[in-house]
Structures are given as structure tokens and as C-alpha cells.
């Protein structure tokens, strides 16, 4: 059974995303909406990890050989500078959230196959949050793109 590999993957990816949100939030303190909302989104990731805890307790998250198979996305450890910095940093976050979003989808499929009601509940909640995180990032990048790409120097 390889589901624990993916649950471990999710847990790690949520931790990476939370840390990345916080790095970008701190690095772009002059953009107050980015600064505050990314902190809110980071707290969502923390909550996802909390919600996963009982599932991990049941399945365990480390299995032999997982390391070779694990698909990991690197987090954002520092922000960029310059006129494109905000957009590029948000775009990095966008890629990270998508990685998680599709992982939740696959874990959700397995949870259904396994008739695991508890895991299904967790997936439903967290998938909704990932979708919201994607929508917010898109909303903000949509706003920023014309100015950054056409006018900023």
C-alpha cells in the first residue's frame, strides 16, 4: 500500500508551502495585501497539517523506498528584487499550490477507494482551500501583470 507515501508527501508539501507563503509575505511587506493575506494562507496550510495528523497516526507516513519515488517541489527560501519580483514570487507560489492541489486530488481518489470517511473529509476541506489559494494568487497576479510588464522599470 503506497497511500502513506502520498500522505507523507502532502504533509511535507504543506509545510514547504506554509514556509514559502511566510517568506514571500515577509519579503513583500510593502504590499500590505500580499503581506497579510499570505500569512492567512500560511495558517491554512498549518491547519491542513493538523487535520492530517490523525490520518498519519493511522497510516504512518514513512515507508521503505519512498525517497526514490517522492516528487518534491522546492519551496521559496528568499524573495527576488526588482520590478518583476512580486509577480515571479507569486508565480512560484502558484506552482507550489498546484502541486499540492493535484496531490490532494489523488489522495482523495484513494480515500474513496479505501472508503476512508475521515480522510475524505480532510481532503474535501483542504482541496477547497487549495482552490481558494489558487484563485487569490491568480486575482493578484492578474492585477499586477499589466503594470509590471508594461510600465514598471
Amino acid at each position, binding site marked *: 500500500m503506497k497511500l502513506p507515501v502520498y500522505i507523507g508527501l502532502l504533509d511535507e508539501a504543506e509545510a514547504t508551502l506554509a514556509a514559502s507563503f511566510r517568506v514571500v509575505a515577509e519579503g513583500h511587506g510593502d*504590499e500590505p495585501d500580499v503581506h497579510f493575506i499570505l500569512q*492567512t494562507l500560511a495558517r491554512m496550510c498549518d491547519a491542513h497539517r493538523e487535520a492530517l495528523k490523525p490520518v498519519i497516526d493511522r497510516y504512518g507516513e514513512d515507508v521503505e523506498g519512498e525517497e526514490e519515488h517522492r516528487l518534491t517541489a522546492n519551496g521559496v527560501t528568499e524573495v527576488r528584487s526588482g520590478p518583476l519580483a512580486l509577480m515571479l514570487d507569486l508565480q512560484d507560489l502558484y506552482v507550489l499550490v498546484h502541486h499540492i492541489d493535484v496531490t490532494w486530488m489523488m489522495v482523495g481518489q484513494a480515500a474513496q477507494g479505501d472508503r476512508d470517511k475521515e480522510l475524505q473529509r480532510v481532503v474535501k476541506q483542504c482541496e477547497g482551500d487549495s482552490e*481558494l489559494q489558487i484563485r*487569490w494568487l491568480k486575482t493578484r497576479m492578474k492585477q499586477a501583470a499589466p503594470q509590471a510588464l*508594461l*510600465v514598471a522599470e
Partner: protein
Amino acid sequence: MTDRISDIWGERTAYGAGQAWPERVDQVLAEGLAADDVDRWVQSACVLCSNGCGCSIAVKDGRMVGIRGRKEDRVNHGRLGPKGLYGSWQGEAHKDRLTRPLIRVDGQLVETDWDTAMGRIVDRSRELLASKGPLSHGFYTSGQLFLEEYYALGILGKAGIGTPHMDGNTRLCTATAAAALKESFGADGQPGSYTDIDECSAIFLYGHNMAETQTVLWSRVLDRLDGPNPPRLVCVDPRDTEVARRAEVHLPVHPGTNLALMNGLIRELFTHGWIDEDYIARHTANVEQLRSVVDPWTPERVAETCGVEAADVRRAAEIFGTENKILSTVLQGFYQSAHATASACQVNNLHLLRGMLGSPGRGILQMNGQPTAQNNRECGADGDLPAFRNWENPEHVQDLARLWNVDPAIIPHWAPPTHALQIFRYAEQGSIGLLWISATNPAVSMPQLSRIRDILRQDSLFLVVQDIYLSETAQCADVVLPCAAWGEKTGTFTNADRTVHLSEKAVDPPGEARSDLDVFLDYARRMDFRDKDGRPLLAWKGPEDGFEAWKECSRGRPCDYTGLSYAKLRGGSGIQWPCTDERPDGTERLYTDGEFPTDPHYCESYGHDLLTGATTGETVYKATVQPGKAWFKALDYSPPHEEPDADYPLRYTTGRTVYHFHTRTKTGRSRRLNDAAPEPWIEMSVEDAARAGCREGDIVRVTSRRGRLEVPVRVGDIRPGTVFAPFHYGYWDAPDGGTAGGGSTSGGGAASPARPVRAANELTITEWDPVSKQPVFKNAAVRVERLRAGDGPSKAPATTASRPATGGQP
């Protein structure tokens, strides 16, 4: 008429539920003049708050010499408030009026002629359009111009230049009202009517110190309270306002915790079954989400979070749950605080749950802060598309392109309109190179003033300011355009309950000053903006052409003006939109049939996530909407982002006093009003003052993470743990001669103001609501230190919420 500085609301004319509010005509004439001396009376409405009282201006020998309330007007039945009586024409007659254009030469502002001033603007404008394109231009306007002026600005910005960077100071005062109405009902538009005060059996005021912000509306409430069958009153406000003193239940919540209270009130409605299941089923969507969001908010949890009594939460909810005709009014205590849109939506939700909407006495007033804020929202000068069109709906953009006969591609609709603080951010970063500010004073009214001053003075920014006085903002400008004030130009405007008034020109503006409309039309002409067929984009000859053009733009939209005309607005009362051929007398209340403008083809917005502001988008909206039904939008409470801590232990909130408007541009120049509140102060509770070792009148330093304020203390009845500062005071009339802080005519200068530091917004945080983008003025953490003894008690008014502590005595 009594002296209305001390007797703010005037004599009572009590009346009972369902009766007509009696007339009472208030009038002030210049000293030594009698009514017989007046040459003529000119019809207008007052622009010194959002109430929109109908009035007539007295003219003698070509000068304004008096004001009188119009008894036939539905808004005020003849009354006027202290600001209208003592600060309307008086506030415009000061020797400081700008009479000639100014341009900056070698760092100094010097007088010039219109050709030179406009030539400078047009040169810079063309140069930037050529080198950087339309996104190099930003426009920041007001809530105090006329409808025709906003519409002209909207057209030249959206179809002439083609920039999404347009907003007004309405972002600071009324953006949340608009946002909440769009989220709940699908489009902007005030559901209720002022006449609901005449009918209601209970009034809830949420963060709305109506007694000071709309004095004539409060007179209407007082007259009901003193009559037979008075309405029950519930007040949510951390200060002991006049409203709180008359309330049956006063909920003095900690600033920043409104949403927790609202969720608790709604939970009580569910718990006790005080809801209209039939209305909910037929006219709303999403009730289960609302139910689950509010579920944890027991009265005890609300009490703990908000610092109020659980029993009072229950009492307030019971009044809302059991009274039959309830009116709710909402203002800045909600709009400028944390979770602004979500909290305002919860007011809408309370009414939807009970079907308490669209009939006499059952209404919502999501208030405006300024007299013409509504028109800015309607006309598109604040970034929204004109006539409540949806920027995400290509058909709506096509409509406008057809109307203006331009290529739809020029109309900015690819992203949300740029809100005020983002416009200033782009200016800070240098990507906006021309910022045109009309009739507002961000150097005093925006949050975190040291930053705003730096932006306005930045070399990379070409700043155009049009105003009637050399405001703190105008002092930073590259070009200053002298404009006509109220009574010196003609136009229409719409108040908070959709009442449209015509305000006629009574006298000529001073010197070479021109109406704001003439300035915008002149700019469009000089820029040679043209439509697809090569005809001038804005060929209006005057305001009436503008009004007629606007009527066409509004046709078929929620704010339909097609049944109105200047002729129809002359004489008689103001008229409420929508006003059409089918509804020639206007429309008193919206949503009388429970049908809401949420149809995806018609709605103004597809909505947002209340937590983050993420847009819902067309696909999801169309998949989930039940056309015609209102939305229950809800959000769980989370603490505000800046809360008191060891370094900054007190909560800081800002607001108005009854005697001033905005940054005192006019009211500070009225002798009567200025004498009533001549200088800034902060309010502290008896306990907090004792802890800081200060007494009434002592000079204190209030410090936040962003700045400091040094003003006298008024020890008052504000709730312990919270301090309050009026936001009106800037630097133009500071004791050092006005050269400090707000900027000097030579530009440059220190980033932080010289003493005395008096503007409340030195301390406020740069943060905004994720949906409405309204700044969070009422939520910061500060500490207070005593500096020295003052020379007697503070000069804060002793008449209203700022009066000295009474130790609980009435």
C-alpha cells in the same frame, strides 16, 4: 432657530410611527441681513455630509449670504445641520481661496494663466502616453464633486486615456457599502429609504455615530424617540456616543471585533428560529454555509472576544428577532475596521434571514460618508464601470464602447479596477508618472501619512491638484488648478438613499476659478480625445449635456436616471432613482418583491471570497448562481492584524466630530465651526488616563509603529483600552503657520512633520479590506505617554461623544 452649535439637532418636532415627519425650516443669514434683503434664493442641496438635505442659497449683490432648508424636500423637511448652516457658504468665502492656477517654478508654486497650467499638464500627459502608455496615468478624485463631473472624468479616463488607475476618496468612506451590496444582492444600490425611520419599530446602528455624522437624519430619529410608539434602539460603538446614550442596548465592542458580534447575533436568530424559512427558500441562496460559519459563536464566546456582556448580545438579538419593522444603518465603525465587507454583509444577512427588506420600516441603509459618493460609485470615476456594469462581463464593456463609440479594447476591463492605495503604491514605485487629484486631500486623509507625503513629493511624480484652497496636498503639486465650489457651479448629486438633487449655480466663482467639469472638458479637448468616427469624445457644452449623456448610460441599469431631467428636479423635492418613464416619481425602496439583480447577465459583480478577496470568476458564478436570489455571504472571525501588545497596549480608533468635515478645508474656515472644535485631541477613559498619569488637558504623545501624535487629552467615556482621535486636523492652520508636516510650497523637506504633530493618520496602518479595499483606519495599536501639563482643559467639544467623563451619569 436656536443656536445650533450648542443645540446641534435643534428643537424637537416629535411624531409617531407611520406619521409624516413634521416640517421645521432652519435658516441662517449673514449678520445684519434680513430675509427681505435677499435678492434671490437658488435651489441646491447641502454637501457637508452624505445626508443630502435640500436647501436654498440666499444671494445678494452677487454673493452668497445665507442658507435655508427646503421644507418640501423628502430628505430634511426644511432642516439643516450645524455644518450646513455655519460652514456652507461661509467656508467658501475665505481670503485663502485659490483664484489663479499655480505651477511649480524652481521649486516654488507661482501664479500663472490657465493656458500655461493646462499646457504643462497636456505636455506631460502626452509625453508619458508616448513613452510609457496609458498605465502611467492615475486619477484620484472625491466624494464631493457632481455627477456630471465624475462621468466626464470616467469617460476621459476610461475611453480617452484608457487607464484602470482611477479611484476616489470614496474608497475611504463608502467602498464597503458598495462592496457589501454587490456581494449580497449582485449590484450596488441602497435597499432602504430615509422614510423607513418614520415607520420602523426598531433601529440598529452599526458603527454609525449618526448623531454626529448625519445630524439631520439623527433629528428624524430623535423626533421618533420623543414621539408616541418610539422605536427601540440598538447601538454598536466603542464610544459613548449620543446614539449609545439613547440606546436600549449598547454594545461597546473592542475595535476590530465587529464580525464576531455579527456572527453571534445571526447564530441567535437561527437558535431561536427567528427566521423566515419561506423567504429564505424563495429569495436566497447559501443559507447552510451561513449557518455553519456562525455556529461556534455563542453569546459567551462573543462576549469574551468583543468585550461586551453576553446578556446584551442576547437582548440585541431578541430585538432583531422579534420586532416587526427593523431599520439597520451601517457606517465607518464597520467600513473602516477589520473584516469590513464581511461584517457589512452580515447586516444584509440579518435582514435576509427575516425577509426584513423592501417594505415600509423594514430596510437597510449601508450609508455613505460623503454627499456625492454615490455618484462616484455610479459614474465610474472610482474604477467601477459606469452604471454598475460588470468589468468581467464582455457584453457590459461592449455596451459602453457602443455608447461612447470607441473600440472596446481601450476600456480597461482586463483586471479589477486599481484601488486608491494601490494607485499610490504604483506612484511610489514610479510606474505612475502623472497623478491627478481632484477635490480631496490625501496628505491628511490617507493612512500612514509620512509615507503618503513622501509619495506626493517624489520627483518622479507629476502631481496635478484641483481644489478650492491650497490644501496640504496642493502644496506638493506641480500644477494647482483653482476650482469653483458648491454654489458656484451647476450639477446634480445623489445622497445615501438614492435621492437625486439639482444644485444650481448661485454666484460666480472667485477670480479665474473654473468648475471641475470645465477643467475635465478642457483637458479632453486639449488632448484631442476622439471617438471611432473622429468626433470629439467629450463635446458637452455644460453640465446639462453631461446629465443627458449620463441618462443614456444608466438606461436599463439598476441606477436608471432616464425619467429625470434638470427641469423635473427644479422646484419640489429631490427624487430617488431608479426613475424611468414607468416610474416617473422615482422608487422609494428596492427589492420590494424579493427579486435581486444577481442574474449573471445583469449583475455588477460575480463576487469575491470574503477572506482573501479572490474573485469568484464567471465560470463558477454561472455554475452556482440562482438568478434573482440574494447570496448569504459569510466569514468566520479571526483577530485583526494589529492587536495591542506590551509595547503598544491600547487600541487606536479614529472618527469625526460633528463640527468638521473631512480635513476641514471648508469647516476649518468657518468661524463658528472652528471655534467649536479648534484643535485636535485624543479621548481616553478615566482608567487609562489614570494609568498614564494624565489629567484632562495634559499634552500626550500617542505612538504607533508608524508615527506619533502630540495633542491634549480629553478624559471621556470611551471604553477602557481604546483611544480615539478625530481625523480632521492637518497642518495648513497649525500654530507654526502651516509650513510643517503637510508640505511646504517649496516641496521637498523632511519626511516627518515638524511640531506640532496633529494628524490622526500619522498613526494609522496601511492595510485594507480584501474585498472593498477600504483602508483599516479604526484598528491600530498605540501607547500613550504624558509629555506635560496643558493650559487648561482640552478644547474638544463638550456637546457630543467627546464630552468629559460623566462617571456613568446621563
